[in-house]
């Protein structure tokens, strides 16, 4: 009897301990950073036009990239979750490649392709990607879409196909069933995947800097600003941007959490 209580207690200690440890670890990092920055550095860095345009660029590009990623990921994940087809394993693996590649590897690959004859053709006639803002979106999209697919696949796999089957008999074609049944039921998961994608996109650095460069005032995102700050040996500025990134991340994540109603599905 006693042994059981002791065991239960030690389990509690263990789980609470781990939770506390990790939360403290992350909080400590943020707090130490905060304290390291001089009060006037905040003003110097943040109030400059450069900081505002950097933030704006980062947020807008991440949002566009995430939305695009979701637009692709939702139907793809749905198909992967519902259908079995020959070569599915291969396709699954191919779609996972961007996750495995380091961002710089992915960015380099994109740069090489964009610099090829075919790539040049696209860039001359459609959109310029290399060293331009669309390049930021392309890089972020490429990194993030695979994550979104994986996350959404799990979401759709969780939804019982029975609901869709019943809707076919109630008169839905596959579009109607998808839009009226599958998507609403996946709503929570879609939002969560979007958050995941957005957070990853905002923090994306390696691929972005390779494809779009990190030109101040043109293609500088918050992570690029951090990198450039270190390259300039301007520690204060670097830390301000790091804290900025943390702040942006926390605000968005908290915001979406509060805006998402709890659903019992």
């Amino acid at each position, binding site marked *: 009897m006693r042994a059981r209580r002791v065991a239960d207690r030690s389990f509690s200690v263990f789980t609470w301990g781990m939770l506390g440890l990790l939360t403290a670890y992350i909080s400590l990092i943020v707090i130490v950073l905060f304290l390291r920055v001089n009060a006037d550095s905040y003003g110097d860095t943040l109030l400059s036009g450069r900081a505002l345009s950097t933030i704006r660029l980062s947020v807008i590009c991440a949002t566009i990239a995430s939305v695009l990623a979701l637009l692709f990921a939702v139907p793809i994940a749905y198909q992967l979750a519902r259908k079995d087809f020959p070569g599915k394993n291969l396709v699954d693996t191919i779609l996972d490649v961007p996750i495995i590649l380091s961002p710089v590897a992915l960015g380099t690959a994109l740069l090489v392709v964009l610099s090829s004859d075919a790539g040049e053709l696209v860039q001359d006639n459609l959109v310029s990607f290399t060293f331009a803002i669309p390049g930021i979106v392309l890089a972020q999209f490429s990194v993030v879409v695979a994550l979104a697919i994986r996350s959404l696949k799990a979401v759709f796999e969780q939804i019982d196909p029975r609901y869709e089957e019943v*809707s076919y008999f109630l*008169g839905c074609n596959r579009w109607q069933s998808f839009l009226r049944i599958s998507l609403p039921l996946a709503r929570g998961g879609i939002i969560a995947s979007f958050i995941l994608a957005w957070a990853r996109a905002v923090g994306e650095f390696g691929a972005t800097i390779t494809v779009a460069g990190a030109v101040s005032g043109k293609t500088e995102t918050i992570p690029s600003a951090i990198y450039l700050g270190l390259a300039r040996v301007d520690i204060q500025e670097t830390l301000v941007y790091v804290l900025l990134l943390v702040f942006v991340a926390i605000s968005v994540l908290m915001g979406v959490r509060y805006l998402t109603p709890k659903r019992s*599905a």
Partner: protein
Amino acid sequence: MIRIKDLSADFDSFKLDDINLHVLEGEHFVLLGPSGAGKTLLTEIILGLRRHSKGEILLGGQTVRGSPVDGISVSYVPQDLAIFPHMGVRDNITFGARVRRMEPASMGRKLAELAELLDITDLLDRPSTATLSMGEKQRVALARALIVEPRILFLDEPFSSLDFYIRRQLIEKLQEIKSTLSVTIFQVTHNHEEAFMLGDRIAIMFEGRIAQVGPPMELQRRPVSLEVARFLLAQNIFEGEVVEVDHEAGRMRTRVDGVCLISPAVDQLSCGQEVSAVIRPEEVHIIRPDRPLGAKVRENLFDGRIEKRIPTPGGYVLTTRIEGLRTPVEIRLSNCAFDDLDLTSKSRVRVSLKAEALWLIPR
């Protein structure tokens, strides 16, 4: 309405073998079988939700092959009901009508009718289906399926998760509905009572094949195999041999252990054939000593003694040892009959195995 010919299907854990079924228009057809017999699988195949490997399926005249048919209105209520969790009751029920762009006025009318019929009018405004009881969910699912005026209605174990009393109510509701709407119903169940109360014809399914199809009476009285007999609780089964066939008198005699049992003559069986004799517990009569013998119980009269008495709701099951028969005979009796007969366990009784109800199955 539904025609299935030589259907076979093979999935990793399950096989369907040579299924042949024909459901007539307007019929209430029940597929009855134990759990794991493959009933849901067969239903999914007929609906086009799964693909079969061999054979032909015609649903309302259209061929089904791995995808739901167009052209004919079919409704499906699966076992878990699949009530849409993200909609309220009214939206759930009217879903099919809205998708098909039914005119709002007639949709409203149909909704009111069905709600009245199924007794769910006061549930219509519930914003969430999560708070409904099983019975209420069942009725909502039915309403959802019926509002689109289907030609065929598929029900998979519609009443399995309900308690006895609610089940009875819903069975009655379904019977009412049948008489108001004209719809062919294909129902899957493992519950005998449901099958017999509702089915115009019943197909018995075991382990991926159909054992027997026919009206309820026929299945009860004339089971085609011991498997079917046992499944339908025709408990009294004796092994014996046909010793005499008298076509003129229309009777045959079968020797079972130390006695001879008389049953109606059947052409397919001949002298010397080994058979199993089956009689339902309800068809074994205890003779009242103070009353004259009725014509139907004059044959197969035996003496015996009650061994065991098991109470059931409304009556008893008596295990009786008959002289000359090795196997004890099970008799079902109502309370009042038991009292009238003034029986106790260990009483000596005279029984008649009603000849008309005795059925022989070749071994």
